[in-house]
């Protein structure tokens, strides 16, 4: 299959799913979504294989129109890796979700069971465009698509608290994208093009560029929930149904982070002020500490996991002050990938445990591990990866970032990285302790498939760290400067 067809399929398959779902109705939405997610994974795997074989960035000018007139799609190592990972996590969530969003035979179809799948497809297509897009305005539309699909996911249950969380999320996200659009306007005004490849050739160190990058970065940081713009995230991610939380926490926040990377590393790598990178790094370090401390204080498991997301997002932004080191970018992308697997596993595991215990209060979860051994082990595996114990993905991340901060002689980031590890150990212990303690719970009617899906996600987070060589080589394609990581 030609690469152009693969690109087009990646962008159209989920939309096709939505088009089919509307006439087919809620009863068939689940089957259609599963089919689409499976095909989506195959397409992502094929694109990754093509990038891997070519060992180069692949591009496709849509409709044969070259930039600046047309819009180009592009897949380098970063996009291929994120594309594949997103498709994998999405399929796992799709296999897990049916219990909450399925219409039994003879039952009345509900709005929830129908809209979830449509929004899910919306998130998928938005993420795919973000990873393949190469034009800042095109990427703006993708970013908005993801937001419009993600906000209703928060308030699927329709409870007052979730509505408030969704509205707050919407306001942060809209302000964020308005700032992003403002930056896009400045870029176009100054350079007359929005194609990333073309821009990287013409940008100069001048106020227009600094203003544009500052606006866009602040906007994207608000959407990624970088401290101190994280206030919307915990209520939104904790209030959503477990499957939706997993999508939001594992995937959606990575989309805007990915654009920040495109902006800083691909558009204007040499001429951005290193001091601006220090500010972003400082916000990241703040996120690690504040997120960790807040997670320690939570009484509900889902809120604890949501605050842990705030902390883990902090690591992503440590790559900007260290941008000159080859391991920083790989470390950041590694964090995005291993966090996606681990956090999806955690939210889904929390969902299963809360189903058995009847609530997600930590005190109510006593002894859940005894009736759900598979889920509990998956939860621990994911926790161990987030804490950063070798040989997990979280460890590989921290090791790469530590390496970068030592060789850049910016030792202060290592303090944040170690403090984050300690705090993560603390709050994960708080979460895991009741699960493995004594308690009485009836044996639940939870399907094995859902438990296995959670375990596979957690294992993926582990395997990323055990065999990091291949993913690192993939990430380096198209980014020669981040190529070799010393053995």
């Amino acid at each position: 299959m030609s690469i152009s067809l693969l690109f087009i399929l990646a962008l159209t398959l989920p939309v096709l799913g939505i088009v089919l779902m509307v006439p087919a109705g809620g009863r068939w939405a689940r089957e259609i979504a599963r089919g689409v997610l499976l095909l989506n994974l195959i397409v992502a795997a094929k694109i990754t294989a093509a990038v891997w074989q070519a060992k180069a960035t692949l591009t496709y000018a849509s409709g044969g129109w070259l930039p600046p007139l047309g819009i180009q799609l592009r897949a380098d190592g970063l996009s291929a890796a994120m594309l594949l990972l997103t498709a994998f996590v999405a399929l796992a969530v799709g296999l897990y979700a049916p219990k909450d969003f399925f219409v039994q035979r003879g039952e009345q179809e509900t709005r929830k069971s129908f809209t979830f799948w449509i929004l899910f497809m919306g998130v998928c297509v938005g993420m795919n465009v973000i990873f393949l897009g190469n034009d800042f305005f095109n990427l703006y539309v993708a970013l908005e698509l993801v937001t419009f699909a993600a906000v209703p996911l928060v308030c699927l249950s329709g409870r007052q608290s979730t509505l408030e969380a969704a509205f707050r999320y919407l306001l942060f996200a809209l302000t964020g994208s308005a700032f992003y659009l403002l930056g896009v306007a400045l870029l176009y005004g100054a350079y007359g093009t929005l194609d990333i490849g073309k821009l990287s050739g013409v940008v100069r160190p001048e106020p227009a560029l600094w203003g544009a990058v500052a606006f866009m970065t602040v906007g994207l940081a608000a959407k990624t929930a970088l401290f101190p713009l994280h206030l919307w995230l915990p209520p939104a991610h904790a209030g959503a149904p477990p499957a939706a939380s997993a999508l939001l926490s594992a995937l959606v926040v990575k989309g805007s982070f990915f654009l920040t990377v495109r902006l800083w590393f691909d558009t204007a790598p040499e001429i951005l002020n290193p001091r601006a990178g220090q500010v972003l790094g400082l916000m990241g370090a703040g996120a690690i500490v504040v997120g960790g401390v807040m997670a320690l204080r939570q009484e509900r498991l889902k809120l604890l996991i949501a605050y842990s997301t705030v902390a883990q997002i902090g690591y992503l932004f440590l790559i900007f002050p260290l941008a000159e080191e080859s391991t920083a970018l790989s470390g950041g992308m590694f964090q995005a990938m291993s966090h996606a697997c681990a956090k999806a596993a955690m939210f889904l595991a929390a969902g299963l445990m809360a189903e058995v215990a009847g609530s997600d209060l930590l005190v109510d979860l006593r002894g859940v591990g005894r009736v759900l051994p598979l889920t509990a082990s998956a939860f621990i595996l994911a926790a161990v990866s987030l804490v950063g114990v070798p040989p997990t993905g979280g460890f590989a991340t921290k090791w790469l970032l530590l390496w970068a901060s030592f060789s850049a002689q910016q030792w202060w980031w290592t303090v944040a990285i170690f403090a984050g590890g300690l705090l993560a150990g603390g709050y994960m212990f708080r979460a895991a302790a009741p699960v493995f303690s004594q308690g009485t719970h009836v044996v639940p009617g939870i399907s094995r498939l859902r438990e296995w899906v959670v375990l596979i996600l957690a294992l993926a987070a582990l395997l990323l760290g055990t065999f990091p060589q291949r993913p690192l080589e993939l990430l380096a394609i198209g980014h020669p400067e981040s190529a070799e990581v010393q053995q």
Partner: protein
Amino acid sequence: MTTIFGICAAILVGLGLYGLIIHPTPLRKILSFNILGSGIFLLFGVIARRGSVDVLAADPVPQALVITGIVVAFSATALGVALALRLNTADQDQENS
């Protein structure tokens, strides 16, 4: 002329952001977002005008971008209003019960 409109755009963006931060009620926040958006769209207009060449009165690309931007802002407003309405009815339910 474009400078005046550029300054107007900047003022609109500032007003919108100010309103978005200080107004507590949902509807006013949504309106503020729209003012912020209008400022950005006006800026696109300024950029289009500055890019004019002899045959074209304005660069068409920013105009095309603005149309898409308006559609997106319209959907965002619709979503925001829908959420605000649901919040309102949920509030009333709570008061009644």
